């Protein structure tokens, strides 16, 4: 038991550091580790991951809230879509064939690589508020590291809501934060600046994960003896990662880990096909 815990905590810390450095969260990294190294059932791996997702996202959001980077109102409004999506995804997890989960996971993993490598930060976007954004007063501003205040408007809110439902669905089905979909919804679709999108996404992940985690708990996918070391390790790792992030130029790192993530995705496909 001791060796099991120590090895698991160390690997979870590593997953947390990598997830934090790459900005994709530790959940998506720990699931393949649990499956391939510990031969844990995919649904139980997903259950352990979702708990760590709540811890890391809530921890990060608490910092971003103090820095006033999060758009609270937009986050709250979009949570309607992510929570309903998460409930749908978690319910589907109970009936879906595990083989399909391997394929879906591989696709989401590959999708996560793209923004990590090619996304450029856009501080200010010139768009007009749409009807919903105007009515709900969603537009806001944020102060960047350079001390300059950037104001932003929001549009395409209904399409953003649809994408958020998909994000919630992926989170509920795969036990991940699915920040990548949330950022696509806010940054690419609703034209919210990247910094606000990523921080607001973090803020929303906890509530989204809560919607699915209780369903996991009841269905018996959350093994506390597995979830606790995974959560503790990933949480510690994400704290270390955040500190390292300030000192590391991580472009090369991103390329290396993108390749690793791609290989893991291929392994997932092979496992799904019964070839591994």
């Amino acid at each position: 038991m001791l060796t099991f815990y120590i090895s698991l905590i160390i690997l979870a810390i590593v997953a947390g550091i990598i997830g934090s450095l790459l900005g994709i969260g530790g959940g998506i990294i720990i699931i393949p580790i649990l499956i391939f190294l510990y031969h844990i059932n995919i649904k139980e791996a997903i259950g352990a991951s979702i708990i760590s997702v709540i811890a890391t996202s809530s921890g990060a959001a608490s910092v971003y809230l103090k820095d006033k980077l999060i758009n609270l109102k937009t986050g709250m409004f979009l949570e309607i879509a992510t929570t309903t999506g998460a409930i749908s995804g978690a319910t589907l997890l109970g009936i879906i064939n595990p083989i399909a989960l391997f394929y879906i996971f591989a696709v989401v993993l590959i999708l996560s690589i793209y923004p990590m490598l090619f996304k450029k930060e856009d501080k200010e976007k010139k768009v007009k508020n749409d009807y919903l954004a105007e009515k709900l007063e969603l537009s806001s501003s944020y102060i960047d590291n350079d001390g300059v205040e950037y104001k932003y408007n929001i549009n395409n809110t209904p399409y953003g809501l649809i994408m958020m439902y998909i994000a919630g669905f992926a989170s509920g089905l795969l036990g991940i934060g699915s920040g990548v979909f949330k950022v696509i919804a806010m940054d690419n679709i609703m034209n919210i600046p990247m910094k606000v999108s990523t921080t607001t996404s973090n803020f929303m992940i906890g509530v989204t994960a809560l919607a699915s985690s209780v369903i996991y708990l009841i269905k018996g996918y959350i093994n506390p003896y597995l979830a606790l070391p995974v959560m503790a390790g990933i949480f510690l790792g994400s704290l270390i990662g955040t500190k390292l992030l300030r000192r590391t130029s991580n472009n090369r790192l991103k390329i290396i880990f993108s390749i690793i993530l791609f290989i893991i995705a291929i392994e997932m496909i092979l496992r799904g096909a019964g070839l591994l």
Partner: protein
Amino acid sequence: MKKIDYNKYISYILRIGVGLSFILAIIGIFLSLNSNKTGKIYKYTSIYNFIYINYMKHLSLTSFVFIPIIVLILTPLLRVIFSIFMFKQEKNIQFVFITSFVLIILLISIFII
């Protein structure tokens, strides 16, 4: 009148919840080191069944190791409840409704599904 910074309070809720859960998780890990339990996983029929089996029928190590997980799950829920209060104080009725709606969805996921 000075505007109250609610962001700060939400931040505290998240910090305290995650911090408490982390401490309890470490205690839980230490307690289960000698148990040689990788955990027999039960399927429950509902949240009431989960509470009954783990906290009313009998208390066990599993009852304890579930506590950090429950604390963690309740943290974002508390954040949503506090947000409703925050929007009410700001007299933003639209967002009192929107956030209450999110709370209802969460309560459905906990107590009904």
